[in-house]
């Protein structure tokens, strides 16, 4: 008999490619593009319908010749194939290590323009920190904690098996007016992602050798499948500041409650918020020079920020041809964003083409190329000591300021600034926005070509060439008339990076009885080459002409580096009866960056997976699946190029504080200098040992799944550019040093709580905790500085502790041993706190992070939401310090007239004894200016805990019936919000998720004039033809 029918999903959409087998035989067919099938069977036989991601259905053939099937999505599919290191596909069941995978929908439903941000709250074991509301700014992602205090902790990004760069390029120092132009993983088009897999442990990534010790993020892009489909989606989104500081609106500018221009007070010298009560109606001369009556402008900051808007259009055409032998996918995406800082914008164009072809029976090829062009305008400067740092100006304006006073900002002839704030070099904010450009333009190409040859059965050979290159130009200028650089200047920096990866991989795959054996061996050649060339032109003759010939002096620079790695590797995988899998890998690398003779290093790994439910044939309704896995790996890594030789370099400039840097030649003389970092010809490779054990359980037919992992990694012989005493003549010295360990626990829980008549409620929860401990730092080293900020504030590591924030604290009473007594804070004879020792202020990293995603589906409707919780860690906020010392923060207006005695403080009697303080503060102004002074960090350090409502999305998928009259084969509309709210935070005034240092640094836990992060609300339409 011939049985036919149609297989569709819950929404009534046809499912092509469903496997239909006759139980107990080898006979099987597939559904066609329209989900139709026909098969010849005997009555009484059972048809088995199976499809990846759907629950398998069995149907016994009865009297009817038509069997239509509606398949439902499985609660948790454990048969999934995961793309692992080197692009090797393996069944997740057989993996001896933990991986987390995020699928395309997570990137497209609430579409983020930045891939990393879309991962927030979705996977365990990773920590993601955004940079606030600056358009195109970087997002930092760290997997399983910081393993190095010296080198980079950023994971390796791999697209379709080929490593690509995630560099974070920024100009100038991180602390003085740094402009973060983003990290290059942002170039990945979220619409092109099929899956994103995070290989967390070194074992998972050991085949990548030295570059794997920070984990690997593997992206597999979509490829053409099924019949030709045109897919189009558009997203429109609006952004506004998520959290603005809580200002007082009672007091105007001045000092000690008074402001009188008659005695010489003026806005430039007055404190922003320590003046008279605004409503008392005093007068002042505003920045434009007009006499004004004090009036409060509570919406000053709101009025300044604009409504940001993001538009994304994506189009793709994909399918297979030539009877399925060839596949193709062409996609393009265009995003345009306008930021909340007026005049800031980002435009991005992605083009990609991916194609595969079966050339001969045993030879196939794959080809993929991507082109990305990103342009950013009006990027924001953070930190301090740079006229372009905008947030610092906006937050510090007196509450009496009407923002419209700053327009116009330039005189009619276009050669002078109007309405400058002019305190210590502060410009009119609109001058900064409109006259001083900060742009970047990046062109990137990455792609690969591979050939797969199967000379005989069971053996396949893969040859692949991967190439990734980008060129980026950063441009910024200070218009003639910018206070701080009145003569004007411009800086142009071109960065060019190239990475070539050649792989050759041979695989032998066979089954011997109950054993499945896979053997692989390969060679990898990787070459990275980076160069930058730039110029700073100072003193513009014609204001708008940014040419080296138009300036009074030029400071040019040039840098270059090139490095290579050659690796050979092997992989052995043996599976017994599908429930026991042993995987061993080995790789040896030769790096160009280490000394001759000491530049070869070997990395072994071993992993075991044991599905005990299958082994012991446990088949209970409660425990449906159980697997134990464990692994060990040892990886290591090299260092940067040119760290070995003692080198003299030509100098083009010499530093001068307050923008006074001068240039060589000086009086016609050239200058050279020895190195600031003492090189080391005896560097050896770093070493990292990893252990991991995991348990995966599925209950109630896998409606409830649990995946737990415990890991420990220990990194020794770190290659560190150690901060050494300057009195040695060097600032830093290259050395192998110390030991750092990370211990952590990860938990992922998935539950299909309700499945009833088309209604489904899924909950996904993840939990991660990681503890970084500096086991050893080396003799004589008290604190190793990872990144330093201002006035002694730094991110550092001390032996026996986690990575911490260090800074100046209030002076405290000393015990007999001369150690500070924690709860005895001292005040001076004026009853005011003052600066004491420099000490640890807390851990930079959180105690744990959690994410929760809930989704409801009913027929075509999907409602999903994600929260994430970060507990612990500390954050220093300069914004809080500034708002308080300047008398602008709401709390500074409370009881301003009351001269209280600072509670629980003490005074030193000068003889080693202390008495309780009874001196009232001289004024509330002096109390706050001392308490929150930026030289005392303790008072501006807060518990960084927060809960963020990351995502809320509602979408509707039209069903077949509804689509009958429309030209689409699929239509989905949705509304979504991102970063909707912050709860449970003790950080005042700012969003605690912020980081001055960006993704290119190991620094964290410091905010300095950051741009407010944004809340976005938008909608999305996706159609397929």
């Amino acid at each position, binding site marked *: 008999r011939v049985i036919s029918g149609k297989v569709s999903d819950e929404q009534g959409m046809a499912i092509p490619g469903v496997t239909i087998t006759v139980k107990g035989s080898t006979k099987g067919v597939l559904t066609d593009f329209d989900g139709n099938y026909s098969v010849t069977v005997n009555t009484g036989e059972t048809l088995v319908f199976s499809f990846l991601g759907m629950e398998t259905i069995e149907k016994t053939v009865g009297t009817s010749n038509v069997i239509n099937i509606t398949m439902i999505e499985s609660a948790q599919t454990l048969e999934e194939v995961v793309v692992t290191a080197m692009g090797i596909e393996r069944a997740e069941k057989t993996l001896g290590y933990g991986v987390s995978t995020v699928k395309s929908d997570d990137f497209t439903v609430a579409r983020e323009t930045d891939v990393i941000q879309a991962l927030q709250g979705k996977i365990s074991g990773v920590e993601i920190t955004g940079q606030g509301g600056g358009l195109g700014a970087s997002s930092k992602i760290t997997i399983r904690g910081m393993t190095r205090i010296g080198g980079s902790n950023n994971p390796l990004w791999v697209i379709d098996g080929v490593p690509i760069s995630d560099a974070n390029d920024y100009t100038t120092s991180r602390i003085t007016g740094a402009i973060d132009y983003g990290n290059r993983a942002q170039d990945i088009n979220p619409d092109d992602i099929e899956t994103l897999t995070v290989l967390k442990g070194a074992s998972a990534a050991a085949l990548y050798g030295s570059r794997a010790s920070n984990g690997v993020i593997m992206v597999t892009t979509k490829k053409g499948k099924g019949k030709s489909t045109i897919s189009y989606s558009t997203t429109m989104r609006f952004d506004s500041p998520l959290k603005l500081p809580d200002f007082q609106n009672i007091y105007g500018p001045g000092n000690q409650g008074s402001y009188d221009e008659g005695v010489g007070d003026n806005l430039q010298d007055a404190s922003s918020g320590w003046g008279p009560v605004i409503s008392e109606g005093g007068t002042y001369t505003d920045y434009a020079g007009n006499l004004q009556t004090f009036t409060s402008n509570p919406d000053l900051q709101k009025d300044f920020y604009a409504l940001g808007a993001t538009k994304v259009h994506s189009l793709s055409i994909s399918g297979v041809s030539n009877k399925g032998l060839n596949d193709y996918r062409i996609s393009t995406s265009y995003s345009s964003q306008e930021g909340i800082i007026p005049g800031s914008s980002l435009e991005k164009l992605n083009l990609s083409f991916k194609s595969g072809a079966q050339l001969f029976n045993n030879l196939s090829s794959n080809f993929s190329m991507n082109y990305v062009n990103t342009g950013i305008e009006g990027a924001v400067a953070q930190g301090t000591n740079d006229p372009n740092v905008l947030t610092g100006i906006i937050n510090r304006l007196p509450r009496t300021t009407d923002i419209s006073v700053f327009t116009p900002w330039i005189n009619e002839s276009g050669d002078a600034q109007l309405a400058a704030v002019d305190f210590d070099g502060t410009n009119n904010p609109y001058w900064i926005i409109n006259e001083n450009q900060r742009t970047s333009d990046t062109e990137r190409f990455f792609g690969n070509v591979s050939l797969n040859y199967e000379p005989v059965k069971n053996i396949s050979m893969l040859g692949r060439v991967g190439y990734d290159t980008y060129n980026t130009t950063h441009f910024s200028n200070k218009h003639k008339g910018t206070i701080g650089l009145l003569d004007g200047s411009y800086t142009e920096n071109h960065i060019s990076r190239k990475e070539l990866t050649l792989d050759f991989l041979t695989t032998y795959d066979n089954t011997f009885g109950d054993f499945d054996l896979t053997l692989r061996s390969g060679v990898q050649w990787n070459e990275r080459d980076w160069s930058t060339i730039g110029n700073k032109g100072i003193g513009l003759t014609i204001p708008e002409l940014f040419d080296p010939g138009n300036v009074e002096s030029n400071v040019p620079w040039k840098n270059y580096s090139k490095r290579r790695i050659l690796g050979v590797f092997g992989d052995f995988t043996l599976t017994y009866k599908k429930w026991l899998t042993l995987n061993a890998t080995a790789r040896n690398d030769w790096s160009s960056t280490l000394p001759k003779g000491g530049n070869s290093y070997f990395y072994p790994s071993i992993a075991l997976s044991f599905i005990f439910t299958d082994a012991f044939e446990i088949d209970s309704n409660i425990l449906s699946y159980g697997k134990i896995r464990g692994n060990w790996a040892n990886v290591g890594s090299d260092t940067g190029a040119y760290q070995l030789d003692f080198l003299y370099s030509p100098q083009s400039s010499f530093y001068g504080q307050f923008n006074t840097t001068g240039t060589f030649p000086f009086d016609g003389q050239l200058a050279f200098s020895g190195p600031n970092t003492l090189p080391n010809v005896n560097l050896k490779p770093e070493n990292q040992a990893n252990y991991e054990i995991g348990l995966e359980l599925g209950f109630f037919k896998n409606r409830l799944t649990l995946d737990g992992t415990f890991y420990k990694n220990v990194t020794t012989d770190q290659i560190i550019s150690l901060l050494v005493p300057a009195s040695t003549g060097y600032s830093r010295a290259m050395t192998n040093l110390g030991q750092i360990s990370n211990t952590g626990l990860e938990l992922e829980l998935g539950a299909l709580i309700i499945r009833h008549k088309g209604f489904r409620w899924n909950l996904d929860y993840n939990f991660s905790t990681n503890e970084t401990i500096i086991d050893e730092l080396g003799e004589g080293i008290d604190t190793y500085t990872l990144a330093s900020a201002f*006035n002694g504030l730094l991110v550092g590591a001390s032996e026996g502790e986690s990575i911490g924030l260090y800074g100046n604290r209030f002076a405290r009473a000393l015990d007999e041993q001369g150690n500070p007594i924690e709860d005895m804070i001292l005040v001076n004879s004026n009853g005011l706190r003052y600066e004491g020792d420099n000490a640890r202020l807390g851990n930079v990293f959180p105690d744990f992070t959690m994410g929760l995603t809930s989704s409801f589906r009913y027929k075509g409707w999907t409602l999903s939401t994600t929260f994430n919780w970060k507990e612990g860690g500390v954050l220093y906020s300069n914004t809080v310090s500034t708002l308080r010392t300047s008398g602008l923060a709401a709390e500074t207006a409370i009881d301003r007239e009351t001269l209280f005695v600072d509670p629980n403080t003490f005074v030193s009697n000068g003889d080693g004894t202390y008495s309780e303080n009874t001196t009232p503060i001289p004024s509330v102004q002096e109390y706050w200016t001392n308490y929150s002074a930026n030289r005392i960090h303790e008072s501006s350090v807060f518990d960084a805990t927060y809960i963020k409502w990351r995502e809320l999305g509602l979408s509707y998928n039209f069903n077949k019936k509804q689509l009958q009259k429309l030209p689409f084969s699929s239509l989905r509309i949705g509304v979504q919000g991102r970063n909707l709210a912050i709860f449970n935070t003790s950080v005042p005034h700012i969003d605690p998720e912020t980081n001055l240092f960006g993704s290119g640094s190991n620094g964290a836990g410091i905010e300095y004039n950051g741009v407010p992060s944004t809340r976005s609300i938008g909608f999305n339409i996706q159609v397929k033809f």
Partner: protein
Amino acid sequence: DEQLVDINKDPLAATSVPPELLFPEVLANLSSVRTIEFAGANMHAQQWCGSGGTWLSRSRYVLGVPSVNNGWTTWYTTCLKNLSLVELLVESENPNNKYVIAQAKILEGFIYSNITQVWGDVPFTEAGNPVEYPYPQFDSQEIVLEGIVTLMDEALSILEQDLDSEIVTDSDLVFNGDREAWIRWANSIKLKMLMFIANKKPEEVASKIQALVDEPLILTNEQEAKFSYTTAIGNENPKWRFIQNYWGGNINLWYAGRPLVNLMNELNDPRLPNYFETNSNGFYVGKWQGATGFAVISKINANNVLPDTPDRYSTASETYFLLADAAANGYVSGGLEQANTWFVQGIQAALDYYDGTWGEISQTDKDNYIDSFPDLSTLTPEEALDYINDQHYISLFGNGIEAWNQWKRTKSVELDVPLNAGATDVIRRYTYSTNEAGSNINTPQGLTIETPMWYEK
């Protein structure tokens, strides 16, 4: 493997360079710290007064940790390190060029004199040798000052010989390879260091000071050791670049300090219009450090901050005032009569400094001023010293580090404890660089900015 490793050579740097190429880097960085990074020393000497922003902070003893770090790091690494590399390069490339080594030693001594005047006890004997001393000990100021004297003696013993040695000329931005000039400077530095030591141990160093009287010293304004900024873009005085960048060359936040103005008003000093502008009422008025409200206060005359205003390392007037001080104290022979001669020569050199410039002082004014002082030989040594050190203090206007230390050494004028500084005494030293303290376990603890220098009486 060979092919793999051979690319690890930086194409943009050299493994050896002619040693003189390191001099401009040393000098430009030395002066950048002296002129702008530590411009706050002018406020510590209370000759200048900051009215706002960073400068008001400096008046209030907020030193700026980055500035402290920059100054320390620049002087130890960029300056002293490159000078020690000069010596290494000479020894490996051409060991005959001993004069180059002497030049390096004198600069080294001068830089240490700056370092110890700012911080007191600092690494000296174990500095600049990372392999042997990864955590250099901090030497007492006494050892540092004596060590600088020894460095000068070593340099002088080379320079005083007629050797077949090259000398750095074009890259020598101080004296363009003038050997005599280097000898004079070495002796002047030595004199100054000995005078610091004499404050504490007069008997031990008096004979050394006496011996210097007949040695070549910087005695005319032409002989002055200075770093000459130029009007070429990028080579201007950093202080000028600062005010140019912010206020188009106008002085906005630098006003007159009260003790100096009061002293000069009392003396009817002809340099008043050179140093300051009059206020709107036509008077010279200074301000208490740390206070606000500058409507009637005199600004610093912008002519002191021109593009080509030099960084004056050692001046002729300084030599005379030190000698006069030594004579009045009896460290050298000649008594108060000799002291008076040097005192007058010192004032003369200080007033003549403006000859041929924007601030030229008329001969009548010069004569009247000099005549207004009593003959020091008619006074007690204490009274004479008071005159000498007041003039010395006035002459160091714009040389913040020197003026501040002259006060610390002599306390000739009464300085104020600044307002709003949380201080109980006048600042004596900078806190140690946090970078050094964070990386060197030998960094002394417990010193405050009010802890006196070793050399103070």
